[in-house]
């Protein structure tokens, strides 16, 4: 049987645990057919089921504590093969610290090195853009030069999202965190919040994270990439719409890279990686 490890990364609150929670329910609930299905319940399943139970009860997940690395092991079957999939749930602070402090724990580095693919999460509605100060004279109200105004110091964690994520992806493609030629999947999470714009995930990335999109197209670090818009919760968990859904797995929305229509199969991004 094939054993595959993947690495799940993203800044704090980018939807990593929500994704795993929805995936846990989709696979264990057996409500709808999926491209990859669970062969049997994993031996160590307390964390996966803990997430899935929260998800199905519309309960908000706590933030994954920093310094923790919770491992999920799934035996998945497709039409052609059987795969042992290992995926970690790491805190967003782990990845933010990689950008800010230029370091991570040895355990994270070890996992990253062994992974065959990278699953990168971006909260579609929490993107910090690079906004230049307009140079128009009238914008400053003719206050003269800017020397009298105290500027704030540069804080690394407040850098544009595209810059931080590009840096993380670059770091994951070289020693000591990994190597080139792995597969990459970008998940634009909380897709329900931006879906009304009528854009495909590819168009959304191009208009909201242009630097990252250029890197994805041009880089020579990864073997290929795919983008998905994903709403793991299906909307606000307090809304009646999702609570009235009779089949909970139908809450999940997965929008492929060049599409505006969604499916519910959350195993598609995993398929793309392995």
């Amino acid at each position: 049987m094939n054993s595959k490890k993947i690495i799940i990364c993203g800044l704090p609150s980018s939807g990593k645990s929500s994704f795993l929670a929805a995936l846990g329910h989709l696979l264990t609930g057996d409500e709808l057919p999926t491209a990859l299905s669970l062969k049997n319940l994993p031996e160590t399943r307390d964390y996966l089921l803990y997430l899935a139970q929260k998800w199905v009860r519309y309960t908000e997940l706590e933030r994954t504590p920093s310094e923790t690395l919770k491992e999920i092991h799934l035996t998945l079957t497709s039409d052609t093969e059987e795969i042992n999939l290992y995926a970690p749930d790491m805190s967003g602070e782990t990845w933010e610290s990689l950008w800010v402090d230029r370091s991570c724990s040895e355990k994270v580095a070890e996992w990253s090195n062994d992974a065959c693919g990278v699953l990168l999460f971006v909260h579609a509605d929490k993107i910090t853009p690079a906004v230049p100060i307009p140079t128009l004279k009238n914008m400053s109200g003719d206050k003269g030069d800017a020397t009298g105004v105290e500027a704030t110091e540069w804080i690394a964690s407040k850098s544009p999202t595209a810059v931080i994520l590009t840096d993380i992806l670059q770091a994951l493609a070289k020693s000591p965190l990994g190597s080139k030629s792995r597969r990459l999947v970008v998940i634009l999470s909380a897709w329900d919040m931006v879906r009304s714009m009528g854009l495909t995930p590819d168009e959304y990335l191009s208009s909201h994270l242009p630097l990252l999109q250029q890197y994805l197209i041009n880089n020579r670090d990864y073997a290929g990439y795919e983008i998905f818009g994903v709403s793991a919760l299906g909307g606000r968990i307090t809304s009646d719409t999702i609570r009235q859904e009779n089949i909970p797995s139908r809450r999940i929305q997965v929008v492929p890279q060049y599409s505006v229509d969604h499916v519910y199969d959350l195993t598609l991004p995993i398929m793309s990686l392995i």
Partner: protein
Amino acid sequence: MAFVCSNPDCSLSETGKCVDGFEVGQCPHVTQDEVSSKTKTDEGFIAPEEKSSIVTIADAEILSIDKATDVLRAKKSCVITVIGPSDAGKTTFALCLYEALQHGPFHAWSFAGSLTLHAFEKRSHYSRILCGKPKPDTLRTPLSDGLGFLHLEIKDQHADYLDILISDRSGEYYGNVANGIEGVDDIHEVSRADYLLFFIDGLRLGTDERHGVTSDIKILIRSLIESNVLRSNQRIGLVLTKYDQVNVSPYKERIESDFDKLASQILDTYGNKFPNIKTYKIAARPDEEVFQEPYGVVNLLEECFMANPVIDYEAGPVSFPDRAFLRLHLPDGGTR
């Protein structure tokens, strides 16, 4: 076993680093916490927590000469060296392409990566809304920083990749070189430059400093030439910066005339030895009322990214010995 710090400002438990710079275990505020080797959440889930040592990655700061050399050895690259006095717009020019790429492909170029994203972000900070200033500015490069290179990997319209290294050094240093305070031994960015740009501050050329500005740049160029730092095939650009402000200055004609005069003086004096001298006018971060986008930068970058011309090899004179025996090593056996 976990370590806990009593200093509320210290995030040792999260980052593994002491805010006061002590080694873990040596800080007087740190105690060992035997209980917290496991973390209990509100729901009773026990999360295994393993302490492990820290792995560091490249700092993403400006590249030292050694690191820049590694890039030059590994890939097709282009070194742009920018020389000029303080506040002439050297760093603003270096940031110009990076800033443009933040919003999508710029002209024929798109972003493929960078080894110096921290360095770019620090320098760009004062041109972003987040800094709180009403007008954009650029972080000055202090003299103590020495020489560094900003790095960008770009892809052009022909799908060719190019690694760009743009020098970043304090203008004060170049002033010291011109004054003889600093020697030229450490000015590595000049000899390796694919394109050497001398920046002339257009704004200061419109003030009473105008003669001082032209005099300073002439002395600097002369210092470099007399020290044999420049190669004769080196491509050189004389760049009038802040052209947006020149364009609206009441002294616009005088400034342009001063610049043209300076350029022709340099061409007259050194044109024989350095045939590849060109002039440019740029506004890397223009006032939007004057120019909607960077002025003259595309043209200048295009020139910079062009491969250096291959110089025809000129063989030296071959002596033709009188004795036939001494002519045997010649390719044609010495037959006339």
